């Protein structure tokens, strides 16, 4: 793997290629530190963009008060410049660490060498945990793990790939894999529902469902349930025919989907607030003099998350009411 390949993938905006590269590195364990350095640089680049970017809620606040995006950008220009400086400096330092050893190899006489191989080092869960800061969350969302998870999602429709990369996939948490399975299977179901009047699609849908039901029975059931709430232009008759269920059964499936979606939103809300609180606690520990301001910001963000969740729950309830009316009409 060379930097050129990574740069080309970045220039082309080929995220999948980058993910593949990271997955391969994750799997093989490289003899050099290049992949880890590139992953770190990408992480910093993303964080820089995040620090610079005006969020949708901020844009909306500015717009509501008659302000302009241009003015906001002028006022935040100095932050942007400093963020770029931090990014540049960190990238240079990382490159220096990455290349120093390669430029200065040395030869020594030794009786016995008992160091772990690079593959052992980079494949060990302990090392990944150490690299990503030691927390389960970071480990789970670390670049290698995240890439492997995406690789898993793209392999779900290909049995050969599932077999080929099973050593990687065995390292993924079952609950994370389940989410990917539901996402992929759910999308297939949704697409089939949208095109169910096309005979070829209907036939393929039946075949795919049979395969998926064998491989991921729980995911298929969940995806079917969610599709009653997520498929646009809800047509109860179509669903009854596709899933071979009665009107009453369809109504219960819809209700189950609504309850589960609201439960998921509440869970996500709690996780976000929890993570945010930890992040702010860390910032407060680093800068105690900023405690009051940071606490205010935290409260503002918590309120924003809570409000967004309430809006989502209201929308789901409205959607549910409309769909249940369609079933009974």
């Amino acid at each position, binding site marked *: 793997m060379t930097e050129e390949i990574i740069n080309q993938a970045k220039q082309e905006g080929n995220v999948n290629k980058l993910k593949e590269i990271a997955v391969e590195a994750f799997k093989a364990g490289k003899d050099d530190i290049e992949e880890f350095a590139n992953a770190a640089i990408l*992480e910093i680049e993303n964080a820089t963009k995040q620090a610079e970017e005006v969020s949708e809620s901020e844009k909306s*606040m500015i717009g509501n008060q008659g302000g302009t995006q241009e003015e*906001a950008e002028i*006022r935040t220009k100095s932050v942007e410049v400093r*963020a770029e400086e931090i990014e540049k400096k960190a990238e240079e330092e*990382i490159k220096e660490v*990455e290349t120093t050893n390669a430029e200065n190899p040395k030869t020594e006489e030794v009786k016995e060498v008992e160091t772990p191989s690079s593959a052992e080092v980079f494949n060990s869960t302990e090392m990944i945990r150490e690299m990503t*800061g030691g927390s389960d969350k970071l480990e789970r969302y670390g670049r290698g793990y995240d890439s492997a998870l995406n690789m898993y999602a793209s392999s779900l429709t290909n049995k050969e790939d599932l077999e080929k990369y099973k050593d990687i996939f065995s390292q993924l948490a079952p609950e994370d894999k389940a989410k990917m399975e539901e996402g992929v299977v759910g999308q297939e179901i949704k697409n089939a529902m949208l095109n169910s009047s096309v005979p070829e699609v209907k036939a393929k849908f039946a075949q795919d469902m049979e395969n998926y039901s064998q491989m991921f029975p729980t995911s298929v059931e969940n995806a079917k349930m969610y599709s009653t709430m997520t498929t646009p232009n809800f047509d109860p008759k179509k669903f009854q025919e596709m899933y071979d269920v009665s009107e009453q059964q369809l109504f219960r499936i819809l209700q189950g989907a609504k309850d589960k979606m609201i439960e998921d939103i509440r869970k996500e809300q709690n996780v976000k607030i929890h993570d945010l609180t930890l992040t702010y606690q860390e*910032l407060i520990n680093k800068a105690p003099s900023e405690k009051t301001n940071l606490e205010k910001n935290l409260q503002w963000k918590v309120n924003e998350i809570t409000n967004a969740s309430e809006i989502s729950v209201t929308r789901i309830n409205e959607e549910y009411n409309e769909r249940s009316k369609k079933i009974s009409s």
Partner: protein
Amino acid sequence: MYVVLLAYIMTPQEQAQKIKEITDRALAELRVLGEERHQIILDYVKELEAKKIEAIRAHILES
């Protein structure tokens, strides 16, 4: 006794640790900058609000 080529002065673990330290520091600095940027936006919004209120006040007093 035999000769081996040690390709690195630092072990991969040491290199990874060093890179991780640099990354953590940069991410922490960027998080603080992100907060600073957010505060600038909040101040801008407050300023706009104040201008709007001032305009309303002026309009009321004129009429």
